[in-house]
């Protein structure tokens, strides 16, 4: 390859000097060189980089030459004109490489060349779009996907059709009416693509939430069906344990003794319960009784403050109801 490099260097030195006539020769020599290089390429892959370098170095000079003289024969300029006709001109390096490759292949030269150039054009388009910030394309696709997603009512309609024959009181089938009505609604609701140029992406989930805000029974049924179908049996013991933990059969490790209890009250609220005794008379057997109750409750670690207060309130109600009886005594 070093020999080729020298040749090309020598030829480059000669090209800027010569007139336009020499272009053909140059082109052919270039082509031949490229062919040789590509022929060598088939043997080893590591030559790719060297080839690219060669192309870059050659085609810089060639671009200069082309600007000078447009008249030149051969399949090379034809390819160029084709590209320019299409609008976006391809990188001449790639064009050259494509032409060389096409000529090296045994099949129809022009066909292969045109195909290669078309592919290159496509690549160029995609790269340009990505440079511009081509995530818009993806977003469009995603937004399209959301639009295509059917409204929950349609799912319900589908399932209802599948599962049972829904008969109205008139004896007519509800399903076709439902589906037609909902298809109209869905089209009117979701009109057009979102370009996401001015709005933030966060508006999309809001939109999605609005459609789901009214879950009918059919939605729940469908969700249950989907969950039942997608829930694969556990492949191993770990997945089984995960499933059990989710269901609540298995406790979470390390074991937390206070899993169900969320007692945010301080200890003084548990022990000093006398403030709840304000509704009772200050003297007498009832007071005596209630003080015993409070003593017992304060020593009880299993009840929450709420439950203790409920006990005391119940006693209060009870004694108020029995006031007449007590006054007789």
């Amino acid at each position: 390859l070093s020999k080729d490099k020298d040749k090309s260097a020598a030829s480059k030195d000669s090209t800027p000097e010569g007139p336009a006539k020499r272009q053909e020769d140059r082109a052919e020599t270039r082509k031949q060189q490229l062919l040789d290089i590509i022929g060598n390429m088939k043997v080893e892959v590591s030559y790719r980089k060297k080839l690219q370098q060669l192309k870059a170095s050659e085609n810089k000079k060639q671009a200069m030459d082309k600007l000078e003289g447009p008249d030149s024969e051969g399949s090379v300029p034809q390819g160029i004109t084709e590209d320019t006709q299409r609008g976006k001109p391809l990188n001449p390096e790639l064009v050259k490489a494509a032409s060389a490759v096409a000529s090296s292949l045994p099949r129809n030269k022009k066909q292969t060349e045109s195909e290669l150039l078309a592919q290159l054009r496509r690549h160029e388009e995609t790269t340009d779009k990505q440079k511009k910030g081509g995530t818009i394309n993806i977003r469009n696709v995603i937004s399209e996907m959301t639009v295509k997603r059917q409204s929950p009512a349609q799912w319900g309609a589908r399932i209802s059709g599948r599962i049972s024959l829904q008969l109205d009181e008139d004896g007519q089938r509800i399903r076709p009416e439902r589906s037609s009505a909902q298809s109209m609604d869905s089209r009117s609701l979701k009109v057009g693509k979102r370009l996401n140029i001015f709005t933030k992406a966060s508006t999309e989930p809001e939109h999605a939430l609005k459609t789901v805000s009214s879950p009918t029974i059919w939605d729940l049924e469908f969700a249950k069906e989907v969950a039942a179908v997608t829930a694969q049996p556990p492949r191993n013991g770990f997945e089984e344990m995960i499933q059990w933990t989710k269901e609540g059969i298995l406790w979470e490790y390390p074991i937390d003794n206070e899993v169900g209890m969320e007692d945010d009250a301080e200890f003084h609220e548990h022990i000093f319960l006398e403030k709840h005794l304000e509704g009772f008379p200050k003297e007498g057997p009832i007071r005596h009784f209630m003080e015993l109750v409070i003593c017992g409750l304060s020593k009880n670690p299993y009840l929450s403050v709420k439950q203790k207060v409920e006990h005391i309130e119940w006693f209060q109600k009870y004694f108020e109801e029995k006031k007449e009886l007590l006054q007789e005594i």
Partner: protein
Amino acid sequence: PCPRQVRSYYVDWRMLRDVKRRKMAYEYADERLRINAIRKNSILPKELQEVADEEIAALPRDSCPVRIRNRCVLTSRPRGVKRRWRLSRIVFRHFADHAQMSGVQRAMW
């Protein structure tokens, strides 16, 4: 998909009744506790305690915990039930011999 027997009903009607009793006992547990606290008292006047007696008798019969019977969970056998496993002795032996009871081994000494 389950390899074991799938039991979707209670074993028999007695088991069902036992279940109902347990539920009711759970609901009325607090009330019974409070009324009994009034009854088993030496401080409050006796008239009050008699009224409390009548009240507790007026509660539904199935709400008292005494009526609950610890039956076997699988066969609903009322007797020979070990509390720790809630199983009757026959079922327990069956599972233990098939090595399906964790940590249970035949005694030999």
